């Protein structure tokens, strides 16, 4: 498809140049500061335009980075030019400085929320879901009953059980882990059940002709075949786990943890610290996802979606 569009590049590029130049001029007429911002945006966008058409493969990988850098620069310059108070929107540089200065505290929050709360709950919930899926595997009746309910529950605002579980399990990480268990259980269960059903009759017949019992067939054929589905569920739930652990801390927590820090810092209008925690949550969330994706590549290297 991109090949079909390519020949029109120069024309659309000249049009883009004219468009952005006009926009910058208009913004300049309105207000010099707005003009500077528009010029910055246009510069970033046109750089990406050049990279997209003439940058080659390396240029193309740089495009999202240029875009991100443009947004950051726009944010920084806008905050400085319009002198936005830091209780409304701190500049990226202020957030970065706060992040570096308070790194020990932020890391201890991360340990409390991600490792103790989210990770424990995620592992427990995943193990429970996989065991449940294997347990109901031999009963099509139970599967037909559980799957619609699982799909239904997956669409519910499960975060809402956080206050109840905080009451039951106390303020420390146990209640956060419990929220995470409930949040990740059904998405993983639904994926795992689908995964266990993913082998076709020919493959099962083949294993049967080798006189494999139920458990042998499960271990050698069906569990490996279920792995792409399982990892799909595991990847979706990494974000859910972190969200569950953070939101559960809004309902009560010891005096550390990302959710606790965010809610108290918001109360004190200490926005740079809030943003620093959010930066950490974003980094940790992406790293969590990346690690699971990496494990997926190692485990399901045979699957078509993993081949390069």
């Amino acid at each position, binding site marked *: 498809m991109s090949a079909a569009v390519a020949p029109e590049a120069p024309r659309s590029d000249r049009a883009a140049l004219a468009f952005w130049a006009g926009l910058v001029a208009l913004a300049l007429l309105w207000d010099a500061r707005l003009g500077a911002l528009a010029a910055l945006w246009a510069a970033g966008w046109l750089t990406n335009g050049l990279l997209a058409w003439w940058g080659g493969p390396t240029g193309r990988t740089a*495009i*999202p980075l240029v875009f991100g850098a443009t947004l950051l620069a726009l944010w920084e310059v806008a905050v400085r030019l319009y002198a936005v108070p830091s209780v409304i929107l701190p500049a990226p540089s202020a957030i970065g400085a706060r992040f570096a200065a308070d790194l020990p505290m932020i890391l201890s929050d991360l340990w409390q929320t991600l490792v103790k709360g989210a990770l424990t709950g995620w592992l427990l919930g995943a193990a429970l879901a996989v065991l449940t899926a294997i347990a109901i595997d031999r009963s099509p009746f139970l599967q037909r009953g*559980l799957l619609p309910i699982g799909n239904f529950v997956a*669409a519910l605002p499960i975060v809402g059980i956080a206050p109840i579980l905080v009451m039951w399990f106390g303020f420390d990480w146990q209640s956060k882990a419990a929220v995470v268990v409930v949040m990740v259980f059904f998405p993983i269960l639904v994926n795992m059940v689908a995964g266990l059903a993913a082998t076709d009759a020919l493959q099962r017949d083949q294993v049967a002709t080798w006189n494999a019992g139920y458990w042998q067939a499960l271990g050698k054929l069906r569990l490996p075949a279920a792995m792409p589905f399982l990892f799909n569920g595991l990847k979706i739930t990494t974000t859910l786990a*972190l*969200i569950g652990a953070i939101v559960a801390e809004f309902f009560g927590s010891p005096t550390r943890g990302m959710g606790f820090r965010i809610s108290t810092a918001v109360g004190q209008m200490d926005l740079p610290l809030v943003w620093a925690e959010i930066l950490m949550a974003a980094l940790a969330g*992406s790293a969590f996802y990346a690690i699971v994706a990496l494990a997926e590549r190692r485990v399901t290297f045979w699957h078509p*979606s993993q081949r390069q």
Partner: protein
Amino acid sequence: MGRVMTETTVSTLTPPRAARRGWAGQAGRSALPVLTVLAAIVVAWYLAAVWMNAPWVRDQAARAGETVTTGQLLRATMAQERPVLPAPHQVAAALWEGVTGQSVTSKRSLVRHGWITLSATLAGFALGSAAGILLAVGIVHSRVMDLSIMPWAVASQTIPILAIAPMVIVVLASVGVTGLLPKALISAWLSFFPVLVGMVKGLRAPDPMQFDLMRSWNANGGQVLRFLRFPSSLPWLFASLKVAIAAALVGTIVGELPAGATQGLGARLLSGSYYGQTIQIWSALFAAAILAAGLVWLIGAVARLTLRRMGLAR
């Protein structure tokens, strides 16, 4: 990694096989199993309620110097004012009372709180979906937009955006924006990404032969969009709208959590947890669940009708 991430993210958005079947056929075959499992859940819930509420009853009896018989114990665990785990019929009664027990303008009315949550959800959903569709149209037509924005859109799904919700509410309140708009913004933000990713996939769903055919008819970009891309993207659109509306509702409820919010189902959850009113928490939770189920069902119904009209349903 980017390629793999795109695929898996979108694969969660494509309609599952079971969901494509007609409602009647699906219900007919799985009604008995579903009802059995539901009954098992209710029984387990009652047992858990007895087990979890019994210590308090025994404690009260011991303090009064009385002994309780099993029958008394069972009855007492079913009818506490602030049980550790309310029994199902208590929650059902509280739901019924909250919906029909008073006028809809009362502060205790679940209809009123539900409506406040629903209106913010729908506003945010409309805003987020519209933005997602528009940006997706831009992305399939502009290579620069595609290469600049898509990696960020995909990466953003790994970030716990919901954790920012309270900050958005408080910051907007400090500049004087309160009420429906801040919550709707969070909902919009949450429903924006599923729609964007699903629509980009959907608008690219037609195969090259179909694009060639449009070219041979000398169709311009707008015509290709209108007659080929939009119709073929609809299954993807509806699948992502279902994800988006559920996300929008969660966003609104979390947006109602920051202290100061007094209206909406999220505020009911929070005030219930402050004052130990467990029945209030559970009834708000079930009201939210019913709302979510209703919204997802509504989109499913619209999807089935539309796709059947277009001959796309199986």
